[in-house]
């Protein structure tokens, strides 16, 4: 079904480092946000005459606020370790998609206006002598293009001997652009919907209630057991915050039904919130602390109003980074929650806990039609943790999969755990106007998947991020695979979980993994 007006990379025997093709992705640029969406987030409506002053002012502000940004601008020694680590470079051959190339777009401006050497040689008219450059208008278009060819996945930072995090540079680049009137349509319209409706999709309360009711019916049809998906239930113990894609898309929704079944069997009381019906925090994608904080505060408010004791996050990669790493400073203190439990907790931690306690009646053979592999989502892998041991974010999802499936094979070790490749659609790039960069950037992951398919008969790949799931649904067909090969981890749990009082599981002969 997938038609492409660009060349889809061919999968070979292994991931090869391509010869560079300068400017090969210079045409890629997402739609710019319209003034009303810009202004709604507190940004300038559109770029004006004073673009140069605006840019340097925003950059100076960020350099003052974030010491990390200034350090990253200063310390690169051009060692080259990062050059072949970015999936977008591997898939596009464009040298500005090498992490150092992407960093230098900003670094040369930083040197020119914020270092003594750059100011000195700049005044002499030879800023290039110290790697500096005068800020020109077309450089902002170049920033806009290449800072939207980075998914902020941080793989390069694992290999940088100085630990330079290109994601933070991309975030700064996007924040500067947004402030001067060049925000991205996809990200900014979505943040606007969170403020006006409560979630990225713009799913109003009534539609959400209707959708959840439909899911309750589906579970009852399948199992004969009434499993509730409560909304805005005051006094529940647990607030589940999950990406709105879980209500809307496949295979996400199969995961949501899995969470509901696990909660049901664990015998806990839980609820969703219509006000905080979104886990994903696009404020992080555009580097905007202010927006990231406002979105996070919605979760705090919902938790207080509903009077819950615990907050659990559903399968959502970037949400978990914000939740695990920043929620307490953005929206804390969470002293009103039960301190016996992790604040916040990941749904996989919860499910793994129940599996260990033996609360769940699992029949692994119900997943025997599949051989699974697991895609570590970038922000879970490199920016968070699960459980109480280092590396828990790698171990716990695999433990849960192995507890509910007989057939599991890992991909090439250079492409998993902290070295995982991004799906290609993370960090605010999951939009149709960036399809070329999404398809090309998915190449390394597709390559690794193809290898285990050929060698070990892997049929499906599980993930724990809404973006990964949507991206792969779209991208797999470009590489000759099928959209239903991507599954939710809790979908696997749901398949294998026999509910107390459940009727014969073979009564429904339809395989619903569509």
């Amino acid at each position: 079904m997938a038609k492409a007006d660009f060349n889809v990379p061919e999968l070979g025997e292994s991931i090869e480092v391509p010869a560079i093709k300068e400017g090969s992705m210079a045409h890629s640029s997402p739609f710019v946000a319209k003034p009303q969406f810009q202004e709604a987030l507190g940004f300038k409506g559109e770029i004006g005459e004073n673009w140069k002053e605006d840019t340097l002012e925003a950059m100076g502000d960020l350099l003052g606020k974030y010491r990390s940004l200034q350090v990253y601008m200063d310390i690169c020694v051009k060692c080259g370790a990062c050059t072949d680590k970015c999936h977008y470079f591997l898939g596009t051959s464009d040298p500005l998609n090498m992490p150092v190339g992407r960093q230098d777009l900003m670094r040369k401006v930083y040197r020119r206006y914020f270092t003594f050497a750059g100011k000195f040689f700049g005044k002499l008219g030879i800023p290039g002598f110290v790697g500096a450059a005068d800020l020109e208008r077309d450089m902002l278009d170049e920033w806009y293009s290449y800072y939207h060819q980075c998914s902020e996945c941080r793989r390069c930072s694992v290999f940088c001997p100085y630990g330079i995090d290109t994601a933070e540079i991309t975030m700064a680049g996007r924040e500067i652009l947004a402030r001067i009137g060049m925000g991205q349509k996809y990200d900014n319209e979505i943040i606007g919907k969170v403020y006006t409706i409560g979630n990225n999709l713009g799913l109003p309360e009534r539609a959400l209630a209707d959708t959840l009711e439909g899911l309750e019916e589906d579970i009852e049809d399948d199992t004969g057991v009434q499993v509730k998906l409560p909304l805005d239930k005051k006094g529940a113990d647990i607030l589940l915050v999950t990406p709105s894609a879980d209500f809307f898309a496949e295979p996400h929704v199969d995961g949501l039904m899995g969470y509901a079944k696990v909660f049901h069997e664990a015998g806990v009381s839980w609820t969703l919130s219509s006000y905080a019906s979104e886990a994903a925090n696009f404020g992080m994608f555009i580097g905007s602390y202010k927006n990231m904080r406002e979105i996070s505060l919605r979760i705090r408010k919902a938790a207080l109003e509903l009077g819950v004791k615990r907050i659990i996050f559903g399968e959502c990669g970037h949400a978990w980074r914000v939740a695990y790493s920043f929620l307490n400073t953005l929206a804390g203190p969470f002293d009103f929650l039960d301190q016996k439990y992790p604040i916040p907790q990941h749904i996989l931690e919860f499910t793994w806990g129940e599996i260990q306690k033996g609360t769940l009646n699992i029949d692994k053979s119900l997943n025997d039609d599949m051989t699974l592999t697991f895609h570590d989502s970038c922000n879970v892998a490199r920016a968070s943790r699960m459980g109480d041991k280092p590396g828990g974010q790698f171990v716990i999802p695999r433990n849960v999969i192995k507890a509910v499936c007989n057939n599991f094979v890992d991909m090439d070790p250079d492409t998993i755990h902290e070295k995982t490749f991004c799906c290609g659609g993370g960090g605010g790039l999951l939009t149709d106007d960036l399809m070329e960069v999404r398809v090309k950037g998915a190449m390394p992951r597709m390559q690794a998947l193809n290898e285990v398919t050929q060698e070990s008969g892997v049929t499906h790949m599980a993930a724990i991020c809404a973006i990964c799931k949507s991206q792969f649904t779209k991208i797999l067909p470009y590489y000759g695979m099928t959209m239903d090969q991507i599954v939710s981890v809790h979908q696997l749990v749901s398949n294998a979980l026999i509910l107390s009082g459940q009727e014969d599981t073979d009564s429904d002969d339809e395989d619903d993994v569509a």
Partner: protein
Amino acid sequence: MPIEVDGKVLETDEEGYLANINDWVPGVADVMSKEDDLELTDEHWDIINFLREYYEEYQIAPAVRVLTKAVGKKLGKDKGNSKYLYGLFPYGPGKQACRYAGLPKPTGCV
């Protein structure tokens, strides 16, 4: 790029979705599908009409499962799945069918 339907010029956004949902007339779906080289059959119209009814009630496109369930109920269980819908609308029921129906594009992590 605006489209011309029944002699009227209608505004669309960068991605070809109607700028104003109230501009929709059945001719919109005809014109858009022609551009995609897709011939609309009664099966397509069943989906387009359902999308419009749902939107009118809930102000959002239906979730994939809501849509497949409704289609399954109306047209038989064998048709209540994503495969059937992608067969009709190769670019995806959410995106292609919504566009023909004049609905805003569902965006988010989908």
